[in-house]
């Protein structure tokens, strides 16, 4: 469809129906482009963001997070809390009440049995459910009546909003998925591609890894919504082409996750067809320091294990100097523009948990040199690279393949060279880097390098499990098939003690304090993790699409029901 016909269509509908009386389907068609194509319509069999977000058009949870990280009820009457009695005093059970009169898109009523079934579906030991972690510690689920669900946990849960909250764990229809549990999950192609949901749209045709055609759900709970009668979610290509289709040619209305250099995005936005929007979540691009020795001279099975501390990076002063040499503001300006903020924190948001640590934001090359000098790293042979005890200050710095990351690598290498640190760069294909193949030497878990760079975040708004990753003993090692989340092989008694305390604390302000302390230990006090940029999300919508609220705490399409066409 060309821009002209799009505009003509918008003018025509605008002339016929005054916008004040909204009616379902009156705004015609909306085109959405995801440069990673969705491959399945349920988040339980694939946890890729693209699949979670595509399915959020059809499937809905009991409650979602808003763009500010607050909880809002969707299928539930209200969000249960300790104050309103929905969460028990001992934090071991949570009671959800469904809205009355909810129906699936096929017209049958939504009951508590569907909610219980969803949990059983995911918790089936043979199913390989991707969201199993959301259902951790559930001991039983009771359904006293058709609209009430009581989830019981086997230990106190300070954050009981794991199951049925957010885009990752929406409710499935029991009648449709009943025969699809366990090993049969992958035989239900029809159900996986065309789930019956309560969301604003239903799937008409699903072409895996290509395109999804949707139309408005005739039984959606708000009779005036959605404003669009049909929708297309196209996948494929790259971020640049997706941005072009919305910002320059106006063929599409919404483009997801435009990871582009800011100058590229800005010059495309001059096309005038659309507007980039950005919002911040918890995604932090960081440098991780290897505390163990990755030298290839060590026998296989001992490289990068706690048996051998790192000969250079075990020195706190080196880690500190490396961090001081970096100009985070410049990195942000070059790599992310308005979609990034320089940060010194591992947990940059929500406010309650974010530490006020800003010391690292000013670059101090001279200070870094002085610190290295003081710590005994001197350039004794005049080749521009510092040595100590015959050991050259030379690092291998790896990351995944991505244009912005390679620019960062080049910049950081330059700064490190200035303070006398020799750096070798390596970039690894991201399907290998982030894959957990124990046979490959290039995974981020194996960490056969001195420093590596990637980004990570946490689901929802509670950082407890995120901070727990750096517990002593949780490191990837040969005995665990190189699985593990403590990538740096960090080990600190004080840190572990604080983690135990956090798990027992329910009071929010107290939790915030502990989390901030944990964040400070692993960042500024030990420089184990060197955060660089708090990365926001940039998407773009056309100037004729209204109602877009970019949300980084939940699916980006969380409020697709409220989208409408701006006449013009």
């Amino acid at each position, binding site marked *: 469809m060309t821009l002209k016909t799009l505009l003509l269509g918008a003018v025509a509908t605008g002339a016929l129906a005054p916008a004040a009386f909204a009616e379902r389907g009156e705004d015609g068609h909306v085109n959405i482009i995801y440069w990673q194509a969705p491959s399945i319509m349920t988040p339980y069999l694939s946890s890729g963001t693209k699949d979670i977000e595509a399915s959020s058009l059809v499937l809905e949870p009991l409650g979602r997070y808003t763009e500010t990280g607050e909880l809002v009820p969707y299928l539930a009457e209200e969000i249960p809390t300790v104050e309103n009695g929905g969460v028990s005093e001992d934090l071991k059970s949570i009671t959800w009440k469904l809205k009355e009169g909810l129906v699936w898109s096929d017209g049958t009523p939504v009951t508590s049995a569907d909610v219980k079934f969803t949990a059983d579906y995911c918790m089936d030991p043979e199913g390989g459910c991707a969201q199993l972690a959301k259902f951790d510690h559930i001991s039983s689920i009771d359904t006293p009546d058709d609209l009430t669900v009581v989830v019981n946990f086997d230990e106190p849960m300070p954050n009981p909003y794991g199951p049925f909250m957010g885009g990752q764990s929406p409710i499935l229809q029991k009648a449709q998925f009943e025969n699809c549990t366990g090993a049969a999950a992958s035989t239900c192609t029809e159900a996986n591609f065309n789930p019956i949901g309560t969301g604003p749209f239903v799937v008409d045709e699903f072409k895996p890894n290509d395109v999804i055609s949707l139309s408005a759900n005739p039984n959606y709970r708000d009779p005036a919504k959605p404003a669009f009668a049909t929708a297309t979610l196209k996948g494929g290509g790259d971020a640049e082409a997706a941005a072009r289709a919305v910002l320059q040619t106006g063929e599409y209305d919404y483009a997801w996750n435009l990871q582009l250099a800011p100058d*590229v995005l800005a010059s495309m936005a001059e096309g005038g067809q659309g507007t980039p929007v950005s919002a911040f979540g918890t995604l932090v691009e960081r440098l991780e320091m290897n505390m163990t020795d990755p030298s290839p001279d060590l026998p296989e099975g001992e490289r990068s294990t706690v048996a051998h501390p790192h000969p250079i990076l075990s020195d706190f002063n080196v880690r500190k100097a490396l961090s001081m040499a970096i100009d985070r503001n410049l990195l942000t300006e*070059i790599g992310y523009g308005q979609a990034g903020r320089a940060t010194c924190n591992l947990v940059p948001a929500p406010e309650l948990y974010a530490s006020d640590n800003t010391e690292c934001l000013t670059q101090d090359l001279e200070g870094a040199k002085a610190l290295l000098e003081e710590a005994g790293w001197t350039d004794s042979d005049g080749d521009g690279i510092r040595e100590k005890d015959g050991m050259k200050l030379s690092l291998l710095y790896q990351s*995944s*393949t991505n244009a912005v990351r390679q620019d960062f690598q*080049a910049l950081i290498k330059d700064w490190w060279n200035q303070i006398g640190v020799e750096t070798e760069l390596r970039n690894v*294909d991201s399907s290998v880097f982030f894959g957990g193949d124990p046979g490959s*030497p290039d995974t981020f878990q194996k960490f056969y390098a001195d420093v590596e760079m990637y980004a990570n975040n946490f689901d929802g708004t509670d950082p407890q499990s995120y901070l727990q990753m750096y517990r002593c003993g949780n490191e990837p090692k040969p005995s665990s098939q190189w699985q593990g989340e403590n990538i740096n092989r960090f080990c600190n008694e004080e840190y572990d003690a604080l983690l135990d305390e956090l798990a027992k604390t329910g009071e929010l302000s107290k939790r915030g304090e502990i989390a901030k302390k944990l964040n400070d230990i692993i960042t500024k006090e030990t420089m184990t993790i060197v955060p660089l940029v708090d990365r926001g999300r940039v998407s773009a919508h056309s100037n004729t699409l209204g109602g877009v609220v970019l949300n980084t705490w939940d699916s980006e399409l969380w409020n697709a029901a409220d989208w409408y066409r701006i006449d013009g």
Partner: protein
Amino acid sequence: MTDSPQDDLILAEGARVAPIEALKDKGPMAPPRSKWRDVWEQFRKHKGAMMGAFFLFFITFGVLIGPYLWTLDPQALDIRNKDMRPIYTALWNSEAKVGWNHPLGSDQLGRDNLSQLIAGGRASMAVGWAAMLLSLLIGTGVGVMAGYFKKLDGPLMRLTDLFLSLPILPLLLVAVTLFRQPLRANFGPEGGMFILIVTVVGITSWMPTARIVRGDVLAIKEREFVLAARSIGTQPFKIIKRHLLPNVLSPIMVSATLGLATAIITESALSFLGVGFPSDFPTWGKMLADAVARMEDFPERVLLPGVAISLTVLGVNYLGDGLRDALDPRIRGR
């Protein structure tokens, strides 16, 4: 039709034996000429070939001594002078950010385009030539063997089928996993990667050449002159060398031209996938790939490496044309 060596022989013979008076040439007898001199004479007449050779020489010379004339480090960042335009932009746009410190402008991190082009040319030319020669060598070898020796035809062609159907990306990943560490230890990060890339590009691109050469050899070996050569007891390898190879030269030349372009482009695809040279090591292909996103604002960044690649390939193409003509005795001397 026979090929050059026999012709030469007859010519030489004719020059030595005193001819019958009536058949004697009117003009003065030309002194005997060496075959390679004839080839050179013919080659010189070919304008395209001379230009191609000149361009190739110019580019090779440029990338070899360039770093001594223009000493800026291609990897050095100069963030204050990022996104500069080439000096000629000032001709029509007086507000453009230009300067003699970066005559061809600089990229988004302030790296100098000219020195990147020179350094990138070294890498690309080296990879392109080495990979192309390797692939030609394997392809011609396999093709000739399979075409000439009936016993080898089946196994070698099935091997070709196998290589044609191997998916390249997993093959690369396996090669990188297995060989990067030992190569890096022995040849350094860049040298090791160079060997790896050349080998991978070489062994994944010889198959079309092999099949084309085999097809031609199958047809040529049934021709009368091969039969004649065989009937006087010429050894198979002599036949291949003197009779078959010269006759399949033209498809090989085409393969070589196309192969050079393919190798340069494939190298850029490899670094794009993160299995090539380190990311701050410039090559023409990578410069081109990086600049595509900014081609509207900074067209020179795609044009410079694009023109460099095209000129190289065109140069090789014309050079190949000229060589082929010069080596063909039926054309030579006309």
